[in-house]
């Protein structure tokens, strides 16, 4: 199994490890609920070095991204980040990713670990028509430090010249210094940063953050945090069989120059009529919502829970669901032999430490 540079540090911190897409990764360090609360209320850190980092350079880099991404990289100023989906010809989602613009025609892209091979193959295939090149950065480690006090802790431990710049770094922006690439981005619904450093520097950084009382958090807490924040997980809340217009990601699809891969399929879908939408559901009775449970309303319209779990912040079961766009108010979920009532809501469930349901 593949290991990140911090593997031993995780074991030393008491991590329980699991196979995560071929990577031996921490699921928790004892209690994933405590880790969840640490991020919502204070600060926590996640080793996300398993994620795939690629750098894109060359005079036609922007043109290439306009072709393969549904969002519009022309919106990006230097040092800004953009969330986008990457679609196939049918409009299905190959992956979701973050693109950081470092300078004109110079980008850093972070894609999911589980989709690495197909993403790299897709990049290789599509880039042939452009004067641009893509290079994977397997030796760059990535730490997500998240929570209302996460940035403070980073300011304490990072070199003073970096800290000075980080102090004024705006949300969805990045700092691009030698050895430190820091995005004020994350996957928890809290303030925080994602720090990319050469892997030989990451153990020292991890240890300094530990000393600054930043709690190590596993992939378990990462999942409940992103779910509460209404953030999609590739492979569950979206896949190649669904378009961004049908799973709550229409906001990431650009309006102008509708000529990216998959755009024609989206236009056809719009003409024919979009029949599905993404909503949030809260279980009104005792139990837990899970991936693939079925929903049905009073008129027989249906839907499916794409991500479900217990919300440690709201202390109820919550889920993201793809449902018929005319889904009514009285919705039930099938759990084993029972049909239980759920409340439908607009995502997210929690943002910046506040429960919204």
């Amino acid at each position, binding site marked *: 199994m593949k290991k990140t540079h911090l593997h031993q540090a995780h074991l030393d911190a008491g991590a*329980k490890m699991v196979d995560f897409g071929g990577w031996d990764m921490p*699921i*928790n360090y004892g*209690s*994933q*609920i405590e880790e969840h609360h640490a991020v919502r209320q204070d600060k926590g850190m996640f080793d996300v070095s398993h994620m795939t980092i690629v750098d894109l350079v060359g005079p036609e880099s922007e043109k290439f991204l306009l072709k393969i991404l549904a969002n519009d990289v022309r919106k990006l100023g230097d040092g800004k980040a953009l969330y986008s989906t990457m679609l196939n010809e049918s409009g299905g989602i190959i992956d979701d990713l973050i693109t950081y613009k470092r300078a004109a025609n110079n980008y850093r892209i972070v894609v999911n670990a589980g989709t690495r091979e197909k993403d790299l193959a897709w990049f290789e295939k599509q880039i042939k028509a452009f004067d641009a090149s893509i290079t994977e950065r397997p030796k760059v480690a990535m730490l997500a430090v998240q929570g209302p006090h996460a940035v403070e802790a980073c300011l304490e431990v990072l070199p003073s010249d970096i800290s000075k710049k980080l102090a004024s770094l705006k949300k969805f922006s990045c700092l691009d210094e030698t050895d430190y690439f820091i995005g004020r981005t994350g996957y928890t619904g809290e303030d925080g940063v994602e720090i990319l450093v050469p892997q030989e520097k990451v153990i020292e950084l991890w240890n300094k953050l530990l000393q600054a009382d930043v709690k190590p958090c596993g992939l*378990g807490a990462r999942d*409940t945090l992103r779910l509460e924040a209404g953030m999609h997980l590739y492979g569950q809340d979206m896949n190649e069989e669904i378009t961004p217009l049908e799973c709550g990601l229409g906001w990431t699809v650009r309006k102008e120059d509708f000529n990216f891969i998959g755009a024609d399929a989206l236009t056809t879908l719009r003409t024919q009529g979009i029949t599905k939408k993404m909503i949030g559901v809260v279980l009104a009775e*005792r*139990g*837990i919502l*899970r991936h693939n449970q079925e929903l049905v309303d009073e008129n027989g319209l249906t839907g499916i829970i794409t991500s479900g*779990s*217990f919300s*440690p912040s709201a202390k109820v*079961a919550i889920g993201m669901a793809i449902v018929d766009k005319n889904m009514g108010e009285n919705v039930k979920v099938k759990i*084993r032999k029972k049909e239980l009532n759920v409340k439908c809501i607009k995502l997210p469930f929690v943002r910046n430490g506040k429960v919204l349901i």
Partner: protein
Amino acid sequence: MSYVPDNFKYVESHEWIEVLDNGNVRIGITEHAQNALGDIVFVELPEEDSYAIGDECGVVESVKTASDIYAPLTGTVVAVNDALEDAPELINENPYDDGWIFEMSIDDANELKDLMTAEEYRNSIEDEE
């Protein structure tokens, strides 16, 4: 190595069985099982009904996953641990005591002979730990 009390019996589905003085049995899940599940957030307690050996009779759910509970013996559920409704984490904190799940009156005491001893259960989980 997870704690496995010597005076209990066990089944492969990681449940422990304590024979009570009145001949009934008390059932819960093992330390090893609660540790594998992680933070437990919901327990669907068995109905007070009769079950055959191996029947699904309840569910323990952690944040991560759901795990069925099976009747380890043939008999009737005579009591359930209501405290778990509001405090399912008792199973994490004290799986062999406050975290008990249900009690059964059993139909055939001979079935007890087929249960694993503590030693046998320890051996069965050794590879997983």
